[in-house]
């Protein structure tokens, strides 16, 4: 930020003028303590209903087996893995915002990191459903993939990328939850102090862990969040790298590619920012948070989306180039099959959603007008899902021996499970905005002049 040095208060541009500590607390905490808008009930009801679809789908899945999905031989992985990668990818933006942007002292993160981190946790929760339930025997997969001492001296196969996944995703989930929770503590204390009902007071108080806002508390808090940011930063890169190994380590044309780790990480951040925008834009409108989530925030996030989108698009171009340049008939066929085969429609839709549509973000006008931007983000969300579909399905359905080529047609249960996880996500997110401050109260306060009174004295 070029104009950073000119600012009297660092990051003051990211807060509408006229706010002080009290007005910020009133506004954000008021969302929880005040009247719940009718739209919340509508939204929660939809999310909760769709969540029931997930429960029904998983119950039926356990009853019948993975055969209720459209999987077959050769396409052994379908919606489950596509959705897993999609949800995990979405989570990445939250971690990036809370960890990397924190380390880089980007002040615009303060008003969006809470919701983005919540999104990360919920997205990981949605993602985690798939790798367990997509197995043939989830009741065994749930613990056989973990290295635990047993009388048979059997360990998981540490050469398998799926085991790496177990570690990567569980680490990621743990760190994300801890980071999010630690960041919540000062605000939980605020809520404890503001809550009216005794139950709420006790609950907020319980989770606020006795926070009193003393200097010592703040000092320890700052150290802890810096350490957690340091821990999370490599995770932003490692999780999706490991997820990409699921594909890159195999021998299947279309999967076996060295470009996958960076391309997946960029894709994850891209998808994540698009999803953050998808959530923030309506949230901002409904709760009138324009003071905290300013046009600049939106603009910055759109810029990140554009930048990572370009990396992803570069990845697509390189995939096609490598396919041709490899002089390997299987690779060449793979890429031509993507472009001309039975799933060509998915491929070109992907190129349109992820390659063409985001180019609109070069225009500042689009970046700062919420409706077009929301449209672009929806296209990216769809595009990133299609990307995983293209990678998973079109690589598997026609690999080495033409005799084994097949097709994958998702069934109603594939869709219901996928849509069901959206229900889970929405339910969790609606509960989150109802009971927790969706914007970090104490961090936004740091953007006010009052937070920098001491600094003024020095300047003076």
């Amino acid at each position, binding site marked *: 930020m070029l104009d950073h040095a000119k600012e009297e208060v660092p990051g003051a541009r990211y807060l509408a003028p006229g706010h002080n500590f009290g007005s910020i607390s009133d506004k954000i905490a008021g969302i929880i303590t005040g009247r719940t808008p009718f739209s919340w009930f509508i939204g929660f009801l939809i999310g909760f209903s769709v969540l029931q679809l997930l429960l029904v789908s998983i119950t039926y899945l356990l009853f019948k*087996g993975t055969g209720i999905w459209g*999987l*077959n031989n050769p396409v052994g992985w379908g919606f489950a893995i596509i959705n897993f990668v999609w949800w995990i990818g979405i989570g990445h933006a939250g971690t990036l915002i809370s960890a990397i942007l924190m380390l880089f002292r980007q002040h615009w993160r303060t008003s969006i990191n809470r919701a983005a981190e919540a999104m990360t946790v919920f997205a990981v929760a949605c993602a985690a459903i798939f790798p367990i339930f997509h197995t043939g025997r989830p009741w065994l997969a749930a613990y056989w*993939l973990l290295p635990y001492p047993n009388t048979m001296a059997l360990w*998981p196969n540490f050469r398998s990328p*799926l085991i790496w996944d177990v570690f990567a995703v569980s680490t990621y989930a743990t760190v994300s939850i801890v980071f999010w929770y630690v960041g919540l503590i000062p605000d939980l204390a605020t809520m404890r102090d503001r809550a009216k009902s005794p139950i709420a007071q006790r609950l907020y108080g319980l989770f606020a862990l006795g926070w009193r806002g003393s200097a010592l508390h703040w000092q320890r808090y700052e150290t802890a969040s810096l350490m957690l940011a340091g821990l999370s930063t490599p995770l932003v890169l490692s999780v999706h790298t490991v997820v990409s190994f699921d594909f890159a380590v195999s*021998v299947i044309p279309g999967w076996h590619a060295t470009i996958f780790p960076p391309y997946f990480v960029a894709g994850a951040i891209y998808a994540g920012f698009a999803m953050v925008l998808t959530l923030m834009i309506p949230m901002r409108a409904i709760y009138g948070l324009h003071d905290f989530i300013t046009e600049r925030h939106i603009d910055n996030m759109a810029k990140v989306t554009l930048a990572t989108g370009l990396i992803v698009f570069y990845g697509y171009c390189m995939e096609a180039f490598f396919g041709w340049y490899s002089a390997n008939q299987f690779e060449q066929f793979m890429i031509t099959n993507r472009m001309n085969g039975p799933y060509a429609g998915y491929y070109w839709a992907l190129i349109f959603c992820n390659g063409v549509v985001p180019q609109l973000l070069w225009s500042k006008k689009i970046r700062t007008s919420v409706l077009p931007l929301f449209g672009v983000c929806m296209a990216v969300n769809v595009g990133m899902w299609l990307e995983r579909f293209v990678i998973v399905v079109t690589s598997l359905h026609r*690999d*080495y021996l033409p*005799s084994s080529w097949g097709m994958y047609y998702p069934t109603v249960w594939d869709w219901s499970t996928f849509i069901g996880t959206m229900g889970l996500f929405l339910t969790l997110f609606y509960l989150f905005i109802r009971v927790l401050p969706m914007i970090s109260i104490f961090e936004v306060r740091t953007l006010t002049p009052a937070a920098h009174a001491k600094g003024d004295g020095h300047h003076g």
Partner: protein
Amino acid sequence: MSDIDLSAIRARLASASGPTFWRSLDEVAETPEFQQYLQREFPENAAEWSDPAGRRQFLKLMGASLALAGVTGCTRQPTEHIVPYVTPPEGYVPGKTQLFATSMPRDGYAEPVLAVSHHGRPIKIEPNPEHPAGGGTSRYAQASILGLYDPDRSQSLTYRGEIRSFTDYQAAMAGALVAQQAVGGAGFRILTGTITSPTLLSQIEAVLNIYPEARWIQYEPVGRDGVVEALAAAFGQRVEPVLSLENADVILSLDGDFMDCGPGEIRNARTFVDRRRLENGATTMNRLYMVESRTSNTGTKADHRLPVRAVDVDGVARAVAAKLGVAGVAAGPLPPKVTQAWIDAVAADLQAAGAKALVVAGDQQSAAVQVLAAAMNQALGAVGSTVNYFPSQAARVEGRTGALGELVGDMAAGKVDLLLVLDANPVYDTPVDLGFADQLQKVAVRVHAGLYADETAELCQWHVPLAHYLESWSDLRAADGTVSITQPLINPLYDTARSAHEVLAAFGDNPAATAFETLKGYWENAFGAGAFTAPDGAAFASFDKFWRRAVHDGFITGTAAAPVALGAPAAVPAAPTAPAADALEVTFSADASVHDGRFANNPWLQELPKPLNKVTWDNVIIMSPRTAEALGIAAQKMTKYQATVATVTLNGRSVTGPVWVQVGHPDQSVNLQLGYGRTRAGRVATGIGYNANLVRRSTAPFFALGAQVQATGDTYTIASTQMHFNMEQRAVVRTAALPVYKAEPTFAQHMTHVPKYEDTLHGNEWQYDGYKWGMIIDLNACDGCNACVVACVSENNIPVVGKQQVATGREMHWIRIDRYYEGDLDNPTVHDQPLTCMQCENAPCEVVCPVAATVHNQEGLNDMVYNRCVGTRYCANNCPYKVRRFNFLLYADWDTKALKMARNPEVTVRSRGVMEKCTYCVQRINSARITAKVEDRRIRDGEVRTACQSACPTQAIHFGDLNDPESRVARLRKEPRNYGLLEDLNTRPRTTYLAAVRNPNPVLSPEAAHVPAHGGGHAPATGAAGDGSGASGKAAESGAATH
């Protein structure tokens, strides 16, 4: 016997005596009279038998009444069989399997087999290598195990649908025969299929002697009657050709699918392929010219194939015969698309081979073609060398045997009062014009004996369940006349089931004779009259020794007939008027899976991908791409498993079914397969497919002109296991013409670049110290007959998944036969490639399994640990050969009791959520290992034979220890044709292939003689295999229609 009441049973029980009252209670309860009593007196309680609680209550009551009855005396029932051994037979080891020689009836002829018995249950069929016609098995023999345990088999003897006992049946027949005795049996008819059994023949003869006016009618839906009749008309002798392909250098087949159809198919396949093995530097092979009206397995092995309509085969045969100088034959006009150059080249090639040439006529071809083929063989001097004419083995009684048409006429005229239909299903499988079903009902007493209560049983008053061949004694003849013994492996599963001998005995003078008594009695007589010798030439000391030997071997040495000499044909049937070139023909052929319908209720066969199109669970209307185009019918869309539905109309009758556009099929010809459209076949087959018999006429049962085909506008889901038939210029199946092979024997090894071990990350090759199992599949030998697939299903308890699952891409077969087309759409070259788990040394599946459920063992097998598998399917995704199979749902049948008996106890039955794949029959390896360890030696070469290898009629599959330099598999590895599939991925497959070599006539394919210069490059698919890339692309477009 029909008025049994409780007091009669009490009386019966009271009159019996014996000390083992409580144990024999069940036996008492299971006597036919008692069961009948239960079924008839308490029909309202019948349901309680399937309800466990109700059944217990019911049995308690019945037990009490029996106990009361039993108090009056200690009974001992005459017990024929005791299950547990007090003194086991010598050499019997519980848990070890035993082999028993027997033979399966196939259209009346014997297919010699060894049945594997595990604890008294037959669980597998193996070939009988000592039998002159043995050496492999057909898919039908392999599937017959499931046929035995089929829960839909008829289980009770019925009269008008009500359960009766066998004694009731015997009494009823005795009654019906009283009336016939008065008229000398004028109203008595016996209808059977082809019968070769000497014992059954003697029984029928005896019956016909008692009733001099009775008649015996034989009808086989896809039989060899036409061959015998045609040759009888021309040569005055009832003969049939038996091929000696081991002597044949040049073969012309006139619509003859001799490797996959008819008696002798297994021997034919092996002897044909033995001349193409090209081992140890051999560079000579036979050459097959195939003129055919459909796409047969034999046709896929042809060096030159000429697809023509069935009616046009006559024209081709005549042209070749004229060229060969067969007396009295003049060449007529050539059929469309047949060139004189082709005829000249074939004739010249045959002529040059002389006595080493062979002309084969298809069993379903016209009389003229049969005679022309025989005359050509005579003219070439081939008779006695490559073909012998044996007396027809189909039994008949001169002057007393009639044809089906005659029977229908008599039935219509009301002349038939008593009809015995013995092991046939004429209501379903006779041509529609006869109206068999309508006329049948004019017969007063109709008796049907069969394995199933089928369409014919429905229209007969009496139905007697027949015993399966694995449950009964009999004898059969092979094509050359060798008598084979059929011995039972198990008591009939259903008490009332009887063998054909016993059913027929009811009409003779000893109605109570058992099959064993009849059979042994027949051979005792024959032994007295004849001079039988052991295979080593020694005379038998006694009948007992002779009989033991015959039963042990499964056949009787020296019973082969002697070939007969044929004179000049009286006349070659005149040429028919040249058929119009644009007339649409319909051909009828036996289905490659269910034959004429008799195997329809066998799910193993239903799920077996048919050789050319890989369709399962249906029959299809096959036509060529050009014909489909002309008729405006769209080719099947395999990416969506959809086929166009069309109606075939012939002489005003029509059938409707899905169309399969088949490349290589002759134009203007539509092929319909028999065996489907059953209305009473059992749970599996009822209602699937269309019934081709509904447009078939008795005057032209196998092909007829003048059809119309009209698309109905509907589409139909078709479950084919292969969607894409184009090799995409990948070096998958590697082939070359013989001249190329001679110039560059290692051509197959240069088609891809195989990385050296030291060039890879893995460094040096892992050394296997003990055994190192490996498999070699000779692509030159495989004709795609599918026997290996069924053998594998039977050996490894592979579940059947059903049509819907196949159409989702979830078939479970561990071995599949891939089929690729190459060249132009009208007449492509066809390649078969059996594919199992390659047991890669660097297996891609092993590294990716998160729970180490698939691991390498010390002998190089890629083991699958079912108990450890959690079902991530990552291994299947990462398998470049896509040979892994996943239990997406609970496919194994855990409930049907009868099917449990068919399973191999050595192999785990897999449950839902578990991956499975070929294990190289590890249970067989371990069984041999135990024997070898007991004897303190290594496993010998040939001691372990995998199920697929053992079943293979052409010996295309070889298995053994690669560490033993003398093993066959190790020696074949050194063959220059040896190559590994996708070896460029550094998977190091343990299964390798021997590349296919074809032997085209240089006159007809001059390009085949062209030897490409070997530049040492590793461009994929150079040489002959990649030829005609443009044409292959075309094949993909409309032939396979995948895009």
